[in-house]
């Protein structure tokens, strides 16, 4: 499979890859370019691959029509808290399941794994009722607490456990002989070695929180509480039809920062996620 390809085959392969690439790359290009076209041009025929005229007012309208800065902040701080929280909870639980012998460990692990089997959509009705009783509807608490401690963090715990199981135990045993406590061994020895696994946990947790859609529209009702995915769909005209160029401008502002970070750190992203899956 890894044999050197003939030049003709290489050209064919490049061509094939470029064609296949269109639906992956073109939408992002179309989103960015259409967001700066005047409204009269966005459905122009023939389609303008490069804007003929520019209209930057769409971007100021994004901020005028909704508290977009606030919504951006909501999404960002929720995703940051959820990411850090999940890293703490899942690395501790994953370490315990991999390394520490305690009663009922296997039974508890099976119970926790149940979280993988239960999509959060199944429990959305009772969760809504519970948070309603707790007076936390239309606050960000459900979007922070459930992902960190509930079903979404189980996958992270599983990934961390698999990583710690594969890690050689000798270093920790030496520290134990030296009389270090469990928590110190975890923090000073195991956790620093677990950086690659933690990085992939951080990446998929962040993306999961950043993309969350059902939970925000169930739990949040006022515009200044909205998160980005929810806010994007709110740029509509008097008839409920989408204001395309403004939606696309807001979508560009939402997507580009993450995309840029990804392009800079793509190696860690891709290999981190591949690593996660393989160990599953």
């Amino acid at each position: 499979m890894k044999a050197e390809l003939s030049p003709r085959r290489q050209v064919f392969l490049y061509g094939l890859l470029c064609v296949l690439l269109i639906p992956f790359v073109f939408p992002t290009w179309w989103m960015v370019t259409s967001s700066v076209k005047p409204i009269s041009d966005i459905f122009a025929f023939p389609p303008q691959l490069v804007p003929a005229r520019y209209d930057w007012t769409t971007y100021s309208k994004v901020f005028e029509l909704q508290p977009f800065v606030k919504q951006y902040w909501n999404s960002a701080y929720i995703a940051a808290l959820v990411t850090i929280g999940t890293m703490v909870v899942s690395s501790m639980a994953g370490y315990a399941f991999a390394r520490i012998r305690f009663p009922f460990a296997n039974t508890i692990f099976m119970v926790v794994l149940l979280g993988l089997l239960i999509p959060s959509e199944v429990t959305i009705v009772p969760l809504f009722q519970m948070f309603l009783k707790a007076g936390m509807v239309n606050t960000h608490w459900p979007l922070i607490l459930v992902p960190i401690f509930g079903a979404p963090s189980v996958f992270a715990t599983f990934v961390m456990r698999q990583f710690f199981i594969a890690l050689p135990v000798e270093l920790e045993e030496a520290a134990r002989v030296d009389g270090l406590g469990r928590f110190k061994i975890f923090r000073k020895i195991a956790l620093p070695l677990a950086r690659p696994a933690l990085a992939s946990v951080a990446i998929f947790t962040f993306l999961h929180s950043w993309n969350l859609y059902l939970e925000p529209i169930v739990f949040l009702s006022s515009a200044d509480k909205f998160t980005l995915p929810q806010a994007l769909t709110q740029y509509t005209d008097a008839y409920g039809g989408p204001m395309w160029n403004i939606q696309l401008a807001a979508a560009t502002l939402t997507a580009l920062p993450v995309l840029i970070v990804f392009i800079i750190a793509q190696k860690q992203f891709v290999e981190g996620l591949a690593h996660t899956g393989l160990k599953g």
Partner: protein
Amino acid sequence: MAVVQQTARPEARSSSSFWTIARRDSLAGFLFIAPQLIGITLFVLIPLCLVFWYSLHEWNVLANTFTYTGVANYEMLLEDTSLPSVLGATAIFSAGLVIFNLSLALLLAVLLNQKLAGITIFRTMFFSPVVVSLVAWTIVWGFLLQKNGGINGVLLVFGIEGPNWLREPVTAMISVIVVQVFKNVGLNMILFLAALQGVPNELYEAARIDGAPRFKQFRRITLPLISPTILLTSIITIVGSLQVFAQIAVLTQGGPGLTTTVLVYYLYQQAFQFHFFGYGSTLSIVLFAIVAVLTFAQWQMRKRIVFYES
């Protein structure tokens, strides 16, 4: 090192004999898993019991009544004339998504596994939609799929009049599947690529010496060796396909008619738009049962299909 031993926990070693190493370990273990265990109890186990309890009740939000009705909600499932088409749409969506996703992921992984200059740039670009915000991605596709949108514009350049993709039953279903596949196929592609790179090269060399054609090499060597990854990705993809919501809500709102109303979207409508929390809970139980059965079936299949497991 002896100094560390002295200073680290002098009192723990000399203190009462109750705190043996095993007991201290048990305590540490429980403390380590406590946040996760409490979270799972509070946000998964209790809600799971509640959702079953709710499903046995008629819940009128406006009148604020909550009456036990036994299996009435489950009888309603059988009488619900929308349910067959909802389950049908769910099945078509999931089947279409899994087949298209896995075959495209495998094709891309095989292509990206070739020795070619600049192949990592292609890998990055195929993966990029995974990190684009889901709703942003969906909005752009919704824009492209409009009657006078970009896709029909390109088709018209070639003299083809395209359909109104999101407003006709068949094309609407194809559209939501395709949009979802292009968004996430990069993940499976990477998993397959890692699996392909794990196949020992000697096997191919041996096959080449024996004169096995490339296709046969793929079928007889590659596929069996990556079958654990195929199983894993198919489980993740199927369970993920049953959770699809944002794409439906943004692109088609379940339409036209009920053709793209999948189970989660129907559940959302019943519970949070019409406030039938009892019936919504019953639908949640149906979703749970489907996921459980599928996961169990795939787990069983592992024994028959998966050829090799590390």
